[in-house]
């Protein structure tokens, strides 16, 4: 018995070592660095436990970057939810074989590199690109499209990149619904809309929450898409962190990163509390 438990411990050892080496220790270093100071001439670091890096975040430049990143994250998460929920619902109502095919179609974009996909959107959104041709052909717009290098272009890119992350957890929740509950609601006189609102949506909420978390959190620190599709004209929080690390100001970059992590953790806590308060 003791041997079996020892063997089980061995099984998780690689994961523990991996997480320690590539998550816990680097995270600890980032937190440590956030309280240090660096000479931007010699790049010598001293660990004096200063809060100066955190005070610097209050500079309107970085506070505005945080606000912009939050707004972008919220709007794109909402966009993913708006598109992802109907798609997940549609897939979950198909026959089993069709579901598998549609799920593969949702996942297919992940088979190619994230950067390649983002650059593909550049060509799609560019003035004179296929999207402009399509919209002109359908007489929806006329003149140059002007989507590339705009906030709308960034939002389109993020929604495109993160949509599968919203669809999959919602699909899992919807697929697990016991349809006897839907039948029961119908038998008790609820029409389709009322059944959807009072039965389907509440039962899908765990998937919605998970989808919003796994879309919203990376979108908050996103910096590749704003650079490529936004023309890098606006300072986002992810870009600010990247710039600070690139120019050697690791303490300040670390402080922004830690502040971002704290904000994310707080958002997760609020979501968790909200879930607990929901009636069963």
């Amino acid at each position, binding site marked *: 018995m003791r041997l079996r438990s020892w063997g089980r411990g061995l099984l998780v050892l690689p994961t523990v070592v991996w997480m320690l080496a590539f998550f816990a220790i680097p995270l600890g270093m980032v937190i440590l660095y956030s309280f240090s100071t660096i000479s931007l001439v010699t*790049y010598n670091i001293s660990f004096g436990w200063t809060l100066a890096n955190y005070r610097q975040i209050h500079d309107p430049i970085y506070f505005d970057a945080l606000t912009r990143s939050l707004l972008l994250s919220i709007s794109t998460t909402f966009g993913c939810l708006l598109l992802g929920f109907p798609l997940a619902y549609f897939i979950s109502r198909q026959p089993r074989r069709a579901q598998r095919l549609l799920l593969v179609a949702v996942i297919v974009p992940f088979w190619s590199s994230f950067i390649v996909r983002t650059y593909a959107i550049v060509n799609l959104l560019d003035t*004179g690109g296929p999207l402009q041709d399509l919209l002109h052909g359908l007489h929806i717009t006329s003149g140059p499209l002007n989507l590339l290098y705009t906030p709308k272009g960034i939002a389109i890119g993020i929604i495109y990149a993160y949509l599968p992350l919203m669809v999959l957890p919602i699909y899992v929740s919807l697929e697990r619904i016991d349809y006897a509950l839907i039948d029961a609601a119908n038998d008790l006189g609820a029409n389709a809309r009322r059944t959807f609102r009072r039965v389907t949506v509440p039962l899908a909420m765990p998937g919605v929450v998970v989808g919003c978390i796994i879309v919203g959190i990376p979108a908050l620190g996103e910096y590749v898409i704003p650079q490529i599709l936004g023309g890098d*004209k606006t300072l986002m929080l992810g870009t600010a962190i990247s710039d600070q690390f*690139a120019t050697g100001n690791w303490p300040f970059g670390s402080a922004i990163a830690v502040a971002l992590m704290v904000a994310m953790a707080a958002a997760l806590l609020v979501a968790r509390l909200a879930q607990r308060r929901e009636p069963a």
Partner: protein
Amino acid sequence: MDDQQQARFPTAHPSRRLRRRELLERAAQLGVALPALSALGAACGGGSGSSASSAGSTASAPPTGTAVLLNYDGWMGKSTMAEFRTAYPGAGLKQASLSSISSGAIVPALKANLRTYDAALGDEAAVGQGLAADVIQQLDWSKIPNIKNVDTKFRQAFPHGIPTDYGKTGIGYRADLVSEDITSWADVWNLAEKYSNKIVFIDLDRDCIGSALKYKGHSVNSTNQAELDEALQDLITIKPHLQALKSYNIGAGLVKGTSVIAMDWDYDVALAQAENPNIKWVLPTEGASAYLEGFFAVKDTPHLDVLEAFFNFFLEPKQYGDFVNTTGTAFVSNAATPYIKPSIKNNPALIVDPATLANVEFENYLGEATAAYTKLWDEFKSA
């Protein structure tokens, strides 16, 4: 990672590689590309065999080991690495690259990864930064006799390593789509409203701020806060009319016509001109910022002998010609001119003459004031 595996690398100028590849492919189709130059080089005795013998005469023992060079992705002659391995069987060079395109990122990377890199490519500002951070290794010039091939002015301006290339930040524009003649930075600012959303600026703080400083007649190395504030206001004024800030593929927009005016580097405009002759290069009348780049050794590298052998090999006219033909950059060694493609050596954007040099100012290391530029850049992007 070997010299073929530079995928992570960036980047300072990814566009260089794509365009270069296209040019080489076209040249190969015409049957006039590097093989002919290689044959010419061999006939002139500039081949790899002579390199080894040349090095052998200056070094007591052949260098051994593998050094790691922090370099831009693709910023190397097409056959340089292979020929170096042939010339020095016991020595090798691996290339690595950074995820950032800024020259200001090189020294922090060296300092944070001591013993990881043996040499790096950097401009004068990066070398100044490296000296301040004490990460630069002085070279034994007796082992690099080919430094004589580098023009004196560049050698003197880059004394802590071997100069590799030189470039200017000027203006490229589509003469067929812009009805006015552009000759200055003032023209760019004045025409911004008319060509709103068709103007692209460089996404690098020193180049962009330096150009704004030149626009008002200031030094690109200014540390005067009032002048920097003025540059910030000028950049904020033009920002609503900018289509994008880009650090790669700047010329691609000019070629397609999706942008009509661009703050751009000379080599990038030259490459774009090869695809669209309507693109004009302008060295602004107010002056322009310029950079001089080169390879330098990292302090206490255990592979100094390999690096010195490589630096000497790199500066051989044939090898340096290969580097220039591959990258399309303005060159710093007239000795290599016979090996350089006419499209490069005769391009007005790339010619290094006294009149041009008189109108450019090299970006220097600014010490503590570097932070002011970083802050200004963030303010510009946040505005």
